[in-house]
C-alpha cells in the first residue's frame, strides 16, 4: 500500500479539455430544396403547357371533322331521300297491282293513325312478293 494519506485524484489536464465537435458536418451535395422545388415546378409547368397544346389540337381536329360531315349531310340525305321515295313508290304500285281484285283496299295506307312519317322497318323488295317465293 502507498504511504500517502491523500489518495491521488484524476483531474482534467491543465487548461481544461478541448471542446468536442458533436454536430454533423456532412459535405454540401446537390441543389438546395428551393432549387429542386423550382426545377420540378418548371418541368411540370412545361408538361402541362404541352398537354394544353395537344388537347387544343385534338379539339380543333375534332371540330374540323364534324364540320366536314355537317357540310355533307344535306347532300347525302337528299340522295337517300330520292332512293327511299322511289322504293316506297314502287312498293305501293306493286301492292295496288296485287290487291286490285279486293274491293275497298287502300294501297299504301299506313298502319298508324297519325300523319307522322314512319320509315319502313322491313325491307320491301319485289323478290318477296313473287308467287311461290320461299326464303331459304
Amino acid at each position, binding site marked *: 500500500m502507498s504511504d500517502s494519506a491523500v489518495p491521488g485524484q484524476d483531474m482534467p489536464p491543465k487548461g481544461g479539455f478541448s471542446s468536442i465537435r458533436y454536430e454533423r458536418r456532412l459535405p454540401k451535395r446537390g441543389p438546395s430544396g428551393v432549387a429542386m422545388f423550382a426545377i420540378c415546378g418548371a418541368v411540370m409547368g412545361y408538361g402541362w403547357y404541352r398537354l394544353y397544346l395537344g388537347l387544343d389540337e385534338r379539339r380543333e381536329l375534332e371540330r*374540323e371533322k364534324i364540320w*366536314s360531315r355537317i357540310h355533307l*349531310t344535306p347532300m347525302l340525305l*337528299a340522295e337517300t331521300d330520292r332512293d327511299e321515295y322511289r*322504293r316506297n313508290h314502287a312498293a305501293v304500285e306493286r301492292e295496288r297491282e296485287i290487291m286490285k281484285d279486293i274491293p275497298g283496299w287502300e294501297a299504301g295506307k299506313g298502319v298508324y293513325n297519325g300523319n307522322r312519317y314512319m320509315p319502313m322497318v322491313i325491307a320491301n323488295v319485289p*323478290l318477296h312478293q313473287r308467287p311461290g317465293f320461299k326464303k331459304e
Partner: protein
Amino acid sequence: MVNPGYKNFKGEDWVDPTPPPAHLPLVDEVGSTGAPLKSASFFIGTLCKEYNEDFMLCKNENRNPEHCLLEGRKVTRCAIDALQKIQSKCQDEFRAHWKCLDGKNQDLGRCRNPEKGLNECLFTAFGWKKDLPGAPTNKPQIHERTPLTS
C-alpha cells in the same frame, strides 16, 4: 368465312330495280366516293350554304322524303356544280389531296401538305377560303397551324 345465316344471301335479291317514277324531274346523282367528298366538303358547304340550309329547314318541317324532293334536287345539283368547278381548275391538287385522304384513313390532320396546295389553288382560282365555324379567333385555324406530331 361466310356467316351461316348469310350463306345463300345474294345481295342483288334485295335491290329494287324499279326506275324512279316518271313525274319526278331527272337529276344526276353525285356518284362520288367518300374521300373526294371529304376533301371538297368545306367548299361544298360554303358554296351551297343557302340550298343546304333550305333543305335542312324543310326536313325539320317534315321527315317524309316526299316533302323535300325539290330542295334535295337543288342541293345535289349545287354539290355537283361545286365538284365540277374544283375539278375544272385544280384537278391535280384535288386528286393529290383525296388520294392522300384515301391512304390515311380519311384523317384530315395527316394530309396537310396536299391540302395546302389545294387551298392555295382554289383561293387563286376562285377566291374560296376554307373556314371553320366556331373556331377560336385569337389563333390560326387548325389547317393553318403546324401539326405538333406528323
